[in-house]
Structure formats: structure tokens, C-alpha cells
């Protein structure tokens, strides 16, 4: 299955990429997606900060099971205000 992955803020700077399509086995989790992304984007693997995950407009934990067409977002801790 395919998911769309969006990077924001410092994670976009690290990967040099705003959006990428990732192909995964059915039933993969966000944690498994992260392992793939870390291989694809070496600087992301070296990112020492926290990473937040959203699918669509909601936060999800690493154990979240992805579905075909999910819009996944990765970003550093938020800092509004």
C-alpha cells in the first residue's frame, strides 16, 4: 500500500523534502514507516529531537496501523504562540 508522508519545519529542513510517497506492506505501523524513512533520509535517523506523528488531522501513536492512502505528517514539537 501507499501512504503520503509530509514533513514540517525542522524535519523538512533535515530531509530536504516536503512530501514523499512511501510504499509499505499492508498492516504496517507508524513505527515501521519511521524505520523506512530513517533509511531513506539519513539525517532524519540522526534527529535527536522528539518527533510527532499525525494521520490526517489527528495525532497517532507509533503503534498506529496505517491504511492505503493515509496522509501522514511528521513534525517536531510545536511552538505556537
Amino acid at each position, binding site marked *: 500500500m501507499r501512504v503520503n508522508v*509530509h514533513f*514540517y*519545519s*525542522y524535519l523538512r529542513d533535515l530531509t530536504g523534502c516536503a512530501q514523499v510517497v512511501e510504499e509499505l506492506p499492508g498492516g504496517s505501523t507508524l513505527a515501521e514507516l519511521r524505520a523506512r524513512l530513517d533509511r531513506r533520509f539519513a539525517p532524519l535517523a540522526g534527529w535527536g529531537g522528539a518527533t*510527532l506523528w*499525525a494521520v490526517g*488531522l*489527528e*495525532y497517532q501513536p507509533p503503534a498506529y496501523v496505517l491504511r492505503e492512502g493515509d496522509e501522514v*505528517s511528521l*513534525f*517536531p514539537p*510545536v*511552538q*505556537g*504562540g
Partner: protein
Amino acid sequence: MTALAHRQGLSVTRHLLITPEPIPEAALVQGRRLSRAAGAAVSFVGVVRGTEADQPIQGLAYEAFARMAEHQLHKLCDEVERRWPVESVRLVHRVGLVKAGEVSLWLEVVAPHRGEAFAACQWLIEELKRVVPIWKKPVP
């Protein structure tokens, strides 16, 4: 508006905006609408400081994942309305370059009494800084 009146479905004003435009603070103040039960309006204005880590900066560049930010703000407002008898929540967050001395966040909560207005306003800012996807970078 009492919590009961609120549960009975009296409408709560909710105005949430993420915008690259300067925040028209005076117009927002003049645009306040109050019910006869309103006794307190508490507002918070976040201003970009002129230094970051002791170095002078030109400003902060704010970036938002706008659709998610608006969705998360609405969820926070839902929770505010469950917890406190507020009658109005208005919030404007600016994105793009916000120069030092300019307003990045304007937030106002109106409620019958000051305790609940302060509590709701402070809670909303804390939660905004925890869950609303907006980021900033200093611009030297």
C-alpha cells in the same frame, strides 16, 4: 451564561483564524459582542521579542500545518466549552514573518466571571503550545 444555559444550547461565539496578515487588534476589540450575562473578557497578546538566545533578531518566521492546526484548535475550544461556561472564544494566530514587536497571537475569552475567563484563556494557550501544529524559526 451559566454552565446550564450553555448545556441548554445557547450559542457560543467561536472565531478561530490562522492568517499571514497583521492582526487587527483594535478592530477585534471593537468587534466584541457580549450577552447580558458577560462579566469578564480576558485577553492574551503574544508579541515577538527582539532577541532570541540573547541575540537580536529581525523577527520569527511562523509556519503552520493549517488544516490540522484549525482542527486541533476547534477540539481545544470544544473542551474549553465543556469545562467552563464561556460565551466567546476568539483566537487569531499569525503565520509567515512576524517582526519583533509585532503580535503573533491574539486570544480573548469572554465569560460571566473572571475566574473562569482567566482559567480558560490560560488553559487554551498552554494546550495550543502543546498540540497545535505551528512552528517558528528566528530570522536574524
